[in-house]
């Protein structure tokens, strides 16, 4: 996996003098001392809580009674009860309409937002990669949405998207794109659109910067050669730029995909209580802390973890993406 471009010191296989191997031993001992504190902290703050969440999902724990919980097997996930009439009553997460609605919202949000962010990010990156006057200003401006906290951007945009006094409706009315004011965040049809607008605005800069880093690694002389051969710029883009920038693009897309699957804050603030935008994270937290269905919420959290883990494994397996930063 991590075939690190090696600057670490390895003992030469043949000339392993005693002094040299003593050095190696010292260094290997240092590995232990240097890594153990970090790993211990990660185990306490990540490993243990994850294990406990998974455990809770197999119990009937409630917020008020965490320790009186007992094991209920897969009850929170899928269970059935045979009624006297012979009918079988299914229960649990996997037959819960609210759960599947959240899954659908999460997938819908992730796919659309990441696709559009990749598209816009590529455009912005190409602009930033071109040489023109005022490039520095543009690069600076593009960083602004990234620097603004998600919560702040959610509130800024909910003011801009306000149905009565929002500036977005005003702009669209003036330009003649709409003929009446739209309640962006409140109405069921547009709630998801509103969330997407804000997320794309906020995250495209990140995409653009990652893609730009990839673009800047492409040697200029390839383009010069193509120019001499009279290759059309559009063709140059699809035949040279795109294939060469693909590794950087893939890493960016994967990071964003995994990140967008867990979205919580933007939706919690921008469109609270809208079933059109409720994602897995929002639903799980609601069950955990607002509805006192702690175990059920844990089951939903666990499922999200499994989905994301599975996606990561598939990505690594299919794409053989090198996460060690060795994209050079």
């Amino acid at each position: 996996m991590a075939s690190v471009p090696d600057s670490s010191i390895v003992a030469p296989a043949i000339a392993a003098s005693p002094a040299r191997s003593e050095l190696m031993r010292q260094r290997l001992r240092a590995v232990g001392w240097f890594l153990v504190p970090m790993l211990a902290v990660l185990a306490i703050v990540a490993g243990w809580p994850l294990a406990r969440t998974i455990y809770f999902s197999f119990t009937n724990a409630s917020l008020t009674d965490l320790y009186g919980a007992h094991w209920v097997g897969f009850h929170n996930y899928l269970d059935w009860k045979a009624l006297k009439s012979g009918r079988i009553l299914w229960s649990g997460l996997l037959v819960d309409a609210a759960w599947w609605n959240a899954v659908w919202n999460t997938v819908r949000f992730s796919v659309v937002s990441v696709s559009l962010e990749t598209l816009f990010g590529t455009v912005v990156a190409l602009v930033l990669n071109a040489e023109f006057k005022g490039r520095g200003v543009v690069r600076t401006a593009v960083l602004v949405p990234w620097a603004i906290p998600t919560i702040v951007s959610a509130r800024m945009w909910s003011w801009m998207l306000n149905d009565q006094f929002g500036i977005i409706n005003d702009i669209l009315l003036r330009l003649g794109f709409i003929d009446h004011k739209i309640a962006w965040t409140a109405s069921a049809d547009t709630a998801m659109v509103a969330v997407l607008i804000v997320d794309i605005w906020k995250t495209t800069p990140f995409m653009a910067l990652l893609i730009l880093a990839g673009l800047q690694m492409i040697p200029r002389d390839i383009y010069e050669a193509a120019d001499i051969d009279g290759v059309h710029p559009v063709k140059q883009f699809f035949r040279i730029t795109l294939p060469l920038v693909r590794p950087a693009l893939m890493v960016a897309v994967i990071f964003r995909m995994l990140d967008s699957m867990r979205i919580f804050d933007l939706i919690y603030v921008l469109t609270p209580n809208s079933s059109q935008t409720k994602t897995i994270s929002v639903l799980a937290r609601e069950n955990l802390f607002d509805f006192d269905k702690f175990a059920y919420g844990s089951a939903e959290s666990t499922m999200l973890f499994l989905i994301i883990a599975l996606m990561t494994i598939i990505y690594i397996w299919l794409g053989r993406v090198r996460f060690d930063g060795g994209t050079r």
Partner: protein
Amino acid sequence: MTIVKYVKVAAFYSLVAFIVVVSVFPFYYAILTSFKSGTALFEINYIPRNFDLSNYVTVMTGGTFVRNLGNSLLVATLVVALALLLAVTAAFALARIKFRGRGLLLLTILAVSMFPQIAVLAGLFELVRAFGIFNTPLALIFSYTIFTLPFTVWVLTTFMRDLPIEIEEAAIVDGASPWVIITRVFMPLMWPALVTTGLLAFIAAWNEFLFALTFTSSNEMRTVPVAIALLSGASEQEVPWGNIMAASVIVTAPLVVLVLIFQRKVVQGLTAGGVKG
């Protein structure tokens, strides 16, 4: 031919202008709104016409906003210091010493930074209560380590890997132990990387919402993002937009300034760590 060229240039610069306006306008509009009060709030204008500081006065004097700012600052600073302390030595081991399982370990660390926060929320909540730190800054410092630590380790590892091996060999010949190599040889070279990584981790901690919302319960203990998210009026119609925008500007302005000052470094760190703020 020349006309075509002019059209092309014009099209390119309109695209540039569009990108700049879309990026900056929402923040500009927030600043503009924050200087309005009373009925002026509900008149839409595109250029600044009002300069009323009453929203800022209300936010800074009424309520707990100053306290919230302090909390955010305290939590983010301490969690970054803690993460950097643990990460420097770990990154040295991961970047400069070859040992079995290194690749797997790196992958695990990356995986932790990609954890959905919600997956650990229930377990962390239990721990926070068991430690008796619910509704204190300690709960946040503790829980934020889950994303700051893997991130700092990851970025510092990529930075350290690029340091020339000759320096280290020279130190080894002089009999320096790994600890001395880190503190005396690498640290002076690492300052830029530490600043970048620290800044990015700071921003991530400053912006965090889910843990802060869950592990604090009283207004005095909240961090800024939660305070802003929960800032609301008595009803849907009475949302204090002026105050919200003033608070938003207060929190965001320092970040924007920091990011602009450290622009180059931020971009470097972002592309090395692949992280979203």
